[in-house]
């Protein structure tokens, strides 16, 4: 219902602004268009609320860091922007307010982002997390971190810490990003503890605390002693794990405050530096042809991964820290999915000596050897 109301409000807003946007769509002179250059504002759209303690909050914080880094730029943000044509309307209204750089931060915002990019050749439109198929228009691109890399490192901490050899993974839906995470977690753990298993339980919801509670209780009952998750709200699983005296690997945020004893490490977002660099590139007029003008994926190989490791908890010993640092160095030239990678049936899916590229990894649709459980069938 909220979506309908937002939609209606946006429609009104868009009608009010459409007279303005029509004027800015075409470049003033017939000469070359430099997208993003001379922008006085930056727009950010988010699919959820800016205080969800997860994905959207992290993106919002990134936008606020852009505001700090560029005091002369007006930063315009919009929350709860649905993943449909309304997103294009909101972006257009931001462009009408002077934004020539727009960030569409949700996976499903891509279609709208490309539409806006086509209508406004003078505006840089970047989308967070999705992939443009084929070649990108000169003023558009996608970007994302390699989420699974810090998850792989956290897997090392989990593999070292477990006493039962059983790790638990509470996830929402079997989307490729999540499958990558579960696989990378197990691969990291196996790299230091070859017999370790990861038990995967899904909740069919990004946030259903009651289902999470039941999932955590059952994993703990099975003897799992390290639990991690891919959920939008994470407190329920962490508290249940801590109460049972088991260990936690975090996701999205540093939650060591609610797991002072069992917190190992985790992964969290830090979008500020990457957002700022994209803005800097666009303002400087060098966006077209830059690394951001395409499907940009950043990991330890390329520098500042926006997905970083959370601080360590008290149970992570020095040897584990050294192993993780060493693995981080390996990732600078390798990948958690460097072959050989076998699936649950033992079949080699990534051959020995092969280091898959980001796009291949983002299309993995199987659990690796050592993951217990199967992907939900429909």
């Amino acid at each position, binding site marked *: 219902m909220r979506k309908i109301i937002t939609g209606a409000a946006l429609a009104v807003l868009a009608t009010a602004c459409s007279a303005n946007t029509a004027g800015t769509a075409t470049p003033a002179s017939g000469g070359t268009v430099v997208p993003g250059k001379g922008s006085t504002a930056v727009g950010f759209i988010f699919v959820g609320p800016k205080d969800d303690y997860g994905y959207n909050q992290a993106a919002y914080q990134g936008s606020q860091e852009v505001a700090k880094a560029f005091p002369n730029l007006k930063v315009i943000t919009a929350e709860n922007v649905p993943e449909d044509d309304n997103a294009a309307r909101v972006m257009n209204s931001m462009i009408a307010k002077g934004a020539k750089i727009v960030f569409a931060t949700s996976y499903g915002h891509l279609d709208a982002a490309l539409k806006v990019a086509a209508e406004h050749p003078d505006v840089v439109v970047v989308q967070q997390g999705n992939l443009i198929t084929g070649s990108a228009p000169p003023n558009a691109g996608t970007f994302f971190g390699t989420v699974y890399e810090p998850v792989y490192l956290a897997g090392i901490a989990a593999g070292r810490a477990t006493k039962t050899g059983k790790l638990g993974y509470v996830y929402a839906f079997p989307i490729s990003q999540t499958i990558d995470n579960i696989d990378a977690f197990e691969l990291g753990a196996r790299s230091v503890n070859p017999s370790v298993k990861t038990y995967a339980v899904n909740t069919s919801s990004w946030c259903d*605390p009651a289902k999470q509670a039941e999932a955590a209780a059952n994993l703990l009952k099975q003897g799992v002693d390290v639990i991690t998750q891919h959920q939008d709200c994470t407190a329920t699983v962490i508290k249940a794990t801590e109460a049972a005296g088991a260990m936690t690997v975090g996701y999205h945020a540093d939650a060591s*405050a609610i797991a002072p004893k069992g917190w190992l490490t985790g992964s969290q977002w830090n979008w500020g530096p990457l957002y700022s660099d994209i803005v800097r590139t666009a303002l400087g007029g060098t966006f077209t042809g830059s690394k951001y003008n395409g499907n940009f994926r950043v990991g330890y190989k390329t520098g500042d991964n926006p997905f970083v490791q959370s601080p360590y908890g008290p149970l992570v010993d020095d040897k584990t820290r050294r192993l993780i640092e060493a693995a981080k160095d390996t990732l600078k030239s390798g990948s958690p999915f460097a072959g050989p990678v076998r699936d649950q049936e033992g079949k080699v899916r990534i051959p020995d000596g092969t280091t898959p590229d980001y796009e291949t990894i983002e299309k993995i649709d199987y659990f690796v050897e050592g993951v217990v459980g199967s992907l939900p069938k429909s």
Partner: protein
Amino acid sequence: MLIVDVLTGGVRGGTAIMFAALGETLAERAGVVNLGTEGCMLVGALGGYAVAAETGNPWLGLLAGALAGALLGLVHAVAVVWRRADQFATGLTLMFLGLGLTSLFGAAYVGKAAPGFDPVPLPVLGDIPVIGEILFRHDPVTYLTFVAAPLLWFALNRTKAGLLVRTAGERADVLHVHGYSPGLIRTVAVTAGAALAGLGGAQLSTAYAHAWFEGMTAGRGFIAVALVIFAAWRPLWVVAGSYLFGAALAVAPALQARGQSLNQFALDALPFVITLVILAVLGRRTLRAAPEELRRVFAR
């Protein structure tokens, strides 16, 4: 053992539903249906969590949850009993009111830490094999239902207050003759019932999930209303029904934690399928067990 885990999960997850269903039993025995039970659970879940977070005392949270539920229930009672509003329409409106209010005021408590209830195994009883694990290693709020259900049964069937409630549900006119106000009795029953629903919501947020999130009751209030019907308005059958539903919810995670291959979507639908099947099988037979005054509401 799988069956033990599923039954343990049934008690763990069925408790919130049981509170709400016991409350709804009380209301319906007095002749009023409260479809807003879901809303009462939601305000209870938020109220309980918020007060626990602010005061640091989960017991105060529990009390606040019950109060929040009661307040929403009172609105229902006033509209339905005193203003003669349609029970179903009012109840549904109340559900949406609860959903709206809690998503508005609950935003500040999403992700916020609050003290809650952790499992406390009961001495001796908790050590009994199988039974101890299923029943006696839970949080203190779960133990409250062990008392609340028999108490409600006793109150309804063996006390004068219970007789008055039942009479309000069966032959309201008789109350008039004897100088009682059926309206007042119904108001008290609906409000107290909603307080129990609020308590169930608070159990969900402070003892089961240890978190607040908008819409976190996820239909448990409606299941509670359906459950009262197939439990034929008897508190002790409500207990069995709640655990059955809780167990149905626990099957999927229990199987998955063992790495069992299964059809996730079918399992997620299981609790609702069970409810539908039972309601359909019992059919009109349940209506015969219905309080007389309630039958007028249902069999229109």
